[in-house]
């Protein structure tokens, strides 16, 4: 379901972009992976996956976070007994949740996270969440969303998690700005300072650091989108009366200026004041890119689909660092979320949606890019084939948004090239 939303347009619609749609093996994580960062961001929440041993193993392996002896996530592993009778499965789930809540009394919000097997056996976690919420409120609110691989890719897990919170956001008519998408705490703080200096406020972040103190939303709320993968959440917020401030994503100096600039425009900040606040940090960010430009300018880039951040990152590496784009892969293309970004992509590139990994690798080998951004399963094999790679998951788990992180993002991408030129083995 796509809600019509008003997008602010500064320029005429760009020429329709050619999109290569493919269907084959998708070498992409499922939405459960989002738990890896969400469980750290939301300090009072617990994520309980209702799934199989595969789900537990996926999160453990993909995240490699065994450092956290007892993390704020876990898996209720379905066994043969649960498959035999759904009534029993519900009883079992109640038992596991009771066990969990008594063990972790600090939990204020419990997310029941659906998985492929729970979807296929049609275990109604929505109902279960209502039932358990009724029992555990006011101490614990139980929410539900799906992170299943049959319905979500990698970062859509965050979208679904935020979406499950939207019905519980209080209403407000007050004029406010809401930044949508999980950001590293350090970046949230940077943006807060920036909005303060610009005189924009009050500013809410979704998600905040606690799942139990939810920001309000309503007709006076302007949405500024920090992450490109929260389309369903944005549509639900729009249905609550909020309005999207269209902008490219705050990736790179240019992206951050455009993003903050769009907020200034929506809030009537004068150009003079905007420039007074932004020009210093913007100039510093641009300056910090220079030494990476030496490594990246003129080099060709191939991005395999992974996190939905491919398009903004490609735009940044192309426009601010002079890289040539061969192919930009994205798991799916949500035009509402990507419109301002697509307008900034150069002509003549291949934008591919979905994936047939074998065919895509055939194209990659034919094109011989100087740098490939891809998942962990492919990086070492491609390196062994002579391709410089950057694993894409690092772009999700590293603070890359905003002015101060623009050079960090460039550095992450330039490092494989620097390293190759340094090594003599």
């Amino acid at each position, binding site marked *: 379901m796509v809600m019509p939303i008003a997008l602010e347009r500064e320029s005429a619609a760009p020429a329709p972009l050619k999109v290569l749609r493919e269907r084959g093996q998708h070498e992409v994580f499922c939405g459960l992976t989002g738990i890896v960062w969400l469980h*750290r*961001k939301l300090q009072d929440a617990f994520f309980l996956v209702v799934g199989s041993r595969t789900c537990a*193993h996926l999160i453990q392996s993909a995240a490699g976070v065994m450092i956290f*002896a007892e993390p704020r996530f876990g*898996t209720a592993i379905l*066994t043969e007994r649960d498959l035999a009778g759904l009534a029993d499965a519900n009883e079992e789930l109640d038992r596991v949740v009771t066990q969990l809540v008594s063990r972790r009394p600090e939990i204020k919000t419990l997310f029941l996270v659906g998985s492929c097997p729970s979807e296929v056996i049609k275990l109604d976690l929505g109902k279960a969440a209502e039932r358990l919420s009724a029992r555990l409120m006011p101490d614990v609110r139980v929410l539900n969303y799906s992170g299943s691989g049959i319905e979500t890719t990698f970062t859509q897990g965050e979208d679904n998690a935020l979406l499950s919170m939207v019905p519980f956001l209080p209403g407000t008519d007050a004029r406010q700005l809401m930044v949508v998408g999980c950001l590293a*705490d350090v970046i949230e703080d940077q943006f807060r300072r920036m909005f303060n200096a610009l005189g924009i406020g009050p500013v809410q972040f979704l998600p905040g650091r606690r799942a139990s103190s939810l920001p309000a939303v309503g007709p006076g709320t302007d949405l500024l989108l920090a992450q490109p993968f929260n389309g369903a959440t944005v549509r639900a917020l729009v249905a609550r009366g909020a309005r999207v401030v269209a902008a490219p994503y705050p990736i790179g100096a240019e992206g951050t200026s455009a993003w903050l600039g769009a907020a200034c425009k929506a809030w009537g900040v004068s150009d003079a004041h905007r420039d007074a606040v932004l020009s210093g940090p913007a100039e510093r960010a641009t300056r910090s890119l220079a030494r990476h430009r030496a490594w990246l300018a003129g080099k060709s880039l191939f991005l395999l689909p992974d996190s939905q951040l491919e398009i903004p990152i490609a735009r940044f590496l192309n426009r601010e660092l002079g890289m040539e784009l061969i192919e930009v892969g994205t798991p799916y293309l949500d035009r509402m979320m990507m419109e301002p970004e697509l307008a900034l992509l150069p002509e003549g590139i291949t934008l591919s949606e979905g994936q047939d990994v074998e065919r895509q690798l055939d194209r990659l080998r034919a094109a011989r890019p100087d740098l490939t951004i891809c998942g962990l399963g492919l990086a*070492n*094999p491609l390196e*062994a084939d002579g391709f410089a790679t950057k694993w894409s998951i690092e772009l999700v788990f590293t603070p890359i948004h905003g002015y101060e992180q623009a050079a960090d993002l460039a550095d992450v991408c330039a490092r494989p090239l620097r390293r190759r030129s340094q090594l003599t083995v």
Partner: protein
Amino acid sequence: MQLTIWTYEGPPHVGAMRIASSMRDVHFVLHAPQGDTYADLLFTMIERYDHRPPVTYTTFQARDLGGETAGLAKRAVAEAYTRFQPNLMLVGESCTAELLQDQPGTLGMTLGLPVPVVGLELNSFSKKENWGASETLYQMVRSVLSDRACVPAPAPRKTPLVNILGPTALGFRCRDDIVEVDRLLAQLGIEVNAVVPLGATVEDLRRLPDASFNIDLYPEVSRPTSQWLQRAFGMPYTQTVPIGMNATRDFVAEVAQLAGVDPRPVLGDEHPGVARLSASQSRAPWYARSVDSTYLTGKRVFIFGDATHALAAARIATETMGFEVVGLGTYSRERARDVRDAASRLGIEALVSDDYLEVEQAIGAAGPELVLGTQMERHIAKRLGIPCAVISTPMHVQDVPARYSPVMGFEGANVLFDSWVQPLMMGLEEHLLQMFRDDFEFHDDAPASHLPATGRPAANAERVADPADETVAAAQPPAAVSAPVAAAAEQAAKQEIAAGWTPEGERELRKIPFFVRGKAKRNTERFAAERGVSAITVETLYEAKAHFGR
């Protein structure tokens, strides 16, 4: 439903992937949703594979459900054959696909491909990774040898021929163990017919019955295959896994007997305790007998891992190192009986569990001075401030070292000696710490002097720089990192504060070095409780010390 935080084993299809990835000319089509492709990174990252595992995933989506998925699976098998041209195809399902009941294995077999297609039933909702590996190996070998079942035993040869069964991709140190076992066999004049599945081809499977017996190197994976080869071809298999000095000697004797060769070329040089002779094979026995190692005597050790490595570790700990085994357990339920037997011989009760929290509790209760475990136990030990060495899967990238590092054979015995001793405090250092408690550099947070210091406050001798943790720390928002550290510090503090202790008693307790303080504290409290002493004084502390001995 089972509440799980960390898992010791992956699902059975990951076991099947390990078999497929071990082989050189096998391709595995896995009927599975998007997301299950994560399993590729186990191979490419943990074991740094320079090629993709030979696995095609059908990656069906919700919109394919209700009819389309079976067709998708069939197409995937056909396309994978065309693209990869393997000599054998495995077709299996992950958990979700199992629920769809598309039976891709059967579909694959009806395609009329010119190579064997082996359909796997992996029972995702009741079985686990090692079972999946053993089942896959068994089905594959059976299928390849189905038409050889009646071939007579091979004619006697001058050089005995054996197969090595069990080493796999992502197995603990399998890469180097094969080399070590191969060396032993060569010294005995025994020729290796095939190593299966690691590095094997389908043709190697066909030749398995050419050998006169099998080395069942990793029973978790190879036992069902070894048993079937015995039934079908009358091939005996070995019972001893050559991990540790004594087990290696037993292994050599067993293999020599099965092959009808003289074990003396290998064992003849072995005179336990005589430095210059045993050094020709292994330094470990002499190192264990050298006076420097006396401080190892009676060290309390907790062992947990897969059955093969846990059993081996228990034997080494008692026979070679002189440790006291205070805990022994495994997550391999299939071999629970062996582990229970071994534990009862040691006078303890085995812990058979795949519940990480239960293991953590058991370690905390046992209060060991050294933990030999998996990556899970490494984290538990770290939290509890106990030194630890990793002896078994699940493992991390740092458990796949660049250097030659077997755990089997005579060199394996050297490697184990070093890696178990390394996390511990050295003998004389331990004494100095005890004598000069007031030295400002001997505070509780001071690490063993041969280990790098860190700023982190924890009573922990395992202060080795940990690349895995650094990666993770870098990958987390900054605020997240301090939380577990704070929790560990808090826990350490809690351990210190004890009810019933008089201030003098507690001061005296603190003079005991941290690595034995936990034990002293527990013993004293037990002593006090048993005698109804409500206030623990300095006297009580020394009474308890005298009562319990060391």
